């Protein structure tokens, strides 16, 4: 702050000179200071996507079943029976790097309110996490605190945390990723929108008092690189999950009684963002009286306008209903105040202590942020992997156990046991497998949901890696028997203004679009998190894709555990294992084979048909760690060994631990296995066969037999995370 006297105010707030010059052109005069602060936040990367929105256009966002694409607080997709699911994934990376407990906790709170704003009842949470290697004390701290924050918040609000995934890599050492996804359910005729409507209607602020927390926080934090030593702690918001739970109960009660015209969450940039988006979406104006807002401490007008205090919602209510709304809020012991009115001016007007402190066209804030094209400089193609330079393990069994003991591949139990993944009594497939399955309250239907990220693949081949992220998540969902119906994505990248990041972003999006088109599903919501880099390093391009699928009957769900001794094991799908960019290699090197979206679609369709016909006792995706790890996971989950016979390829370690293609390990009765085989369309085949049974996990590669004892495997698998954290 020592150079505050010499630095122009707009630059202090993070606006460029060109951006600052654009504001008077839009509003016809110089902005007031509160107005400048409002613009600086609304035009930040976090709120405006100014460096990514030109690239995002390539993603499919509509299609059969899509009731609401991007643009609202969350997307909406039909699930049948007159029900829709609302879902979205969002990052809270930068706050979590500064204060992991509160950063991760408030990330959960924010995404839950996004789903709530659609009128939906939140029924499932997932968290995709990336941290530096657990050999680093700092990463151990960030990881354990982020998990504790998610547990603290998610458990207390009564929404089951049913899934997600985890990865540890040095590239995340200074820039951890914390992405939270929420799914909610709502009747088609009960959905809400954030679009403000009806001049003369009242604007009611519900929930926590407004304080100085997170002033400029999310927006400024999330829009610049973090440098070591910077103390940004006061910028991180503080969580209050008890109030969030009351907000959920209260908003659902208000929606049920038809008392809400529209509903909006207060997230990044607080009231400024919530109100300008409400006005811009509805083509109306809002007049706000800042003196009516319950404050936790004395605040200036600009602070009230941009405070990021958590657990607040903004509602538009018909004047005749205001008293009833306030009464329902009191019943839930929540503060609520009518703080303004909808107008037909199209302007966002804020009064404070008798003066107009802001009077802006709402669209200028919400829609007129600049859009920048980013440099598209391709990274050089990655070099072919020299297999001869990868040392071949002397003892394959030892290498196998070593992989199971790797925190990237071992059991996530240490994490999900800290989360209430059962609350609601609807979790019919619990965490630890391919996707969680949650029964829809009051329906026989269920949803399956999974997140996936493919950062090593994206680093060496962003287009194929982007496709793989979508396809992996869809395959995970299909392994439970569910038919994928929609996707949400969080694109975690470095600074797009430098290097090859812009090109990688474009390529990942193109690959995702190819895969989504092949699957016939759309991205209905999402988030972009840029500037995930430090002076030392840039994160791998990390698209986290969440896919939601539907099961028409909950009891058709399939788990990943081998169920019965003597059953047949089939490895079905396509593709050959490769060590390029694999978890076994542990680094982003080589040229992994690109996935084939058309064959992936066929595989997804085969799995969902087989589940509907009740043919599969288990199904498990072959992903990180290859077929050896997948076989072991199904065996451990079922408490029974298995043997798989595979055809020898180039090298034993590649055959066992290689990744690539779309391969699924299925178990079934011998008769059902025959039926399943007969169902396989052109392009898919049975790659390997085996049998459930015994107390060993065995892979026979021609005459060469590698085995590990099931109890040794389980011990290594369960020890992976606890040992790395000890």
């Amino acid at each position, binding site marked *: 702050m020592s150079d505050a006297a010499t630095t122009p105010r707009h630059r202090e707030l993070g606006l460029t000179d060109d951006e600052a010059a654009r504001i008077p052109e839009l509003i016809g005069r110089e902005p007031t200071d509160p107005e400048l602060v409002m613009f600086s936040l609304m035009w930040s990367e976090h709120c405006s996507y100014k460096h990514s929105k030109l690239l995002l256009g390539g993603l499919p966002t509509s299609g059969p079943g899509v009731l609401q694409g991007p643009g609202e607080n969350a997307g909406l997709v039909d699930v049948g029976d007159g029900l829709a699911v609302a879902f979205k994934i969002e990052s809270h990376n930068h706050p979590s790097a500064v204060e992991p407990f509160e950063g991760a906790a408030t990330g959960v709170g924010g995404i839950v309110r996004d789903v709530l704003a659609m009128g939906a009842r939140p029924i499932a949470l997932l968290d995709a996490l990336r941290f530096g290697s657990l050999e680093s004390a700092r990463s151990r701290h960030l990881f354990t605190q982020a998990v504790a924050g998610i547990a603290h918040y998610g458990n207390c609000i*009564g929404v089951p945390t049913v899934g997600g995934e985890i990865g540890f890599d040095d590239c995340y050492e200074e820039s951890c990723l914390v992405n939270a996804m929420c799914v909610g359910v709502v009747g088609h005729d009960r959905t809400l929108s954030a679009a403000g409507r009806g001049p003369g209607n009242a604007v009611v602020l519900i929930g926590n008092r407004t304080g100085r927390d997170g002033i400029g926080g999310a927006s400024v934090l999330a829009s610049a690189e973090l440098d070591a030593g910077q103390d940004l702690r006061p910028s991180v918001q503080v969580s209050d999950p008890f109030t969030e739970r009351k907000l959920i109960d209260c908003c659902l009660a208000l929606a049920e009684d038809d008392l809400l015209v529209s509903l909006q969450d207060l997230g990044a940039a607080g009231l400024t963002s919530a109100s300008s988006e409400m006005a811009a979406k509805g083509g109306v104006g809002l007049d706000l009286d800042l003196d009516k807002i319950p404050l936790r401490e004395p605040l200036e007008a600009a602070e009230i306008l941009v405070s990021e205090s958590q657990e607040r919602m903004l509602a538009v209510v018909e004047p005749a209903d205001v008293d009833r709304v306030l009464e329902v809020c009191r019943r839930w012991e929540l503060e609520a105040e009518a703080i303004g009115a909808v107008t037909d001016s199209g302007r966002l007007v804020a009064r404070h202590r008798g003066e107009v402190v802001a009077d802006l066209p709402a669209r200028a804030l919400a829609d007129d942020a600049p859009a920048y094209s980013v440099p598209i400089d391709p990274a050089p193609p990655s070099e072919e992997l020299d297999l001869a330079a990868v040392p071949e393990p002397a003892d394959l069994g030892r290498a196998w156990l070593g992989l199971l003991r790797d925190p990237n591949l071992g059991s996530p139990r240490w994490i999900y*046991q800290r989360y209430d993944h*059962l609350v609601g009594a609807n979790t019919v497939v619990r965490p630890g497998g391919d996707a969680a399955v949650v029964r829809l309250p009051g329906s026989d239907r269920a949803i399956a949901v999974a997140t996936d990220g493919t950062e090593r693949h994206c680093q060496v081949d962003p287009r194929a890696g982007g496709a793989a992220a979508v396809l992996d998540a869809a395959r995970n969902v299909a392994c439970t028997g569910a038919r994928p119906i929609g996707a949400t994505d969080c694109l975690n990248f470095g600074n797009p203004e430098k290097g090859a990041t812009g090109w990688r972003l474009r390529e990942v999006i193109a690959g995702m679009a190819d895969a989504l088109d092949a699957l016939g599903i759309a991205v209905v919501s999402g988030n972009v998190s840029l500037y995930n880099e430090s002076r030392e390093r840039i994160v791998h391009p990390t698209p986290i894709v969440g896919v939601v699928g539907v099961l028409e009957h909950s009891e058709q769900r399939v788990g990943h555990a081998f169920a019965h001794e003597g059953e047949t094991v089939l490895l079905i799908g396509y593709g050959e294992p490769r060590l390029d960019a694999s978890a076994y290699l542990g680094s982003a090197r080589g040229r992994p084979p690109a996935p084939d979206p058309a064959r992936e679609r066929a595989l997804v369709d085969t799995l969902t048909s087989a589940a509907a016909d009740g043919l599969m006792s288990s199904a498990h995706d072959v992903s990180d760690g290859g077929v050896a790890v997948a076989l072991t996971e199904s065996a451990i989950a079922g408490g029974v060994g298995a043997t798989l016979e595979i055809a020898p390829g180039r090298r034993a370690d590649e055959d066992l631990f290689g990744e690539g293609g779309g391969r699924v390990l299925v178990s079934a009765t011998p008769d059902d296995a025959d039926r399943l085989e007969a169902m396989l369309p052109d392009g898919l085949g049975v790659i390997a066969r085996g049998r459930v049974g015994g107390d060993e996990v065995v892979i026979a590669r021609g005459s060469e037999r590698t085995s590990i004892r099931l109890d040794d495997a389980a011990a290594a698998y369960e020890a992976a995370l606890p040992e790395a954290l000890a």
Partner: protein
Amino acid sequence: MTVAVVRFPGSLDHESAARAVRQAGGEPVEAWHADASLPPDTEAVVIPGGFSYGDHLRPGAIASRSAVMADVARHAERGGRVLGICNGFQVLCEAGLLPGALRTNAALSFVCRQVELEISDRSTQWTGGERGPERLSIPVKNHDGAWFGDPDRARVMLRYVDDPLGSTDRVAGVANDGGNVLGLMPHPEEACDPLLGSTDGRHLFAGLLGRAA
């Protein structure tokens, strides 16, 4: 049979508990925390799990002093059945209706997993008496679920086969002297449906209604 399911701000499992009551043949009715009395014709009470009042002060401490709890105490004194699950168990201990207290888990973290319970006292209808099962498989999920007290001066009903929480003498659930008030940390309402992996929780809801599962 009318079963009051008490709801506080922060209750989470009231709907699952009501579903389990209905499945057992009872008629669940919501009892609002601020009301001075239980709903008319209440014959049994469930205090479900959750984070009433956000666990502020101590889990269950604020809820135990809410208006409706005075009537729950009168209902218990009259010999009416009360089932407290997880946070409901904490509320009943805080209210003095059950002995002991619930402390933070030994692991200092939330624990969510399936547990095996052995029925220590098979003399009551709660678990179907002597003809009822000897063990139950039910999930546990809490942060402050380690029962602390004197097992010799409490009517211990349920013990963990392998205690993940660090309770005194593996105690998972206790009753009052009369046997009509039962509190347990595991969640029987999460184990009433084959789709969820276990139906053992049905015994406790049948017991609440005074019949066998």
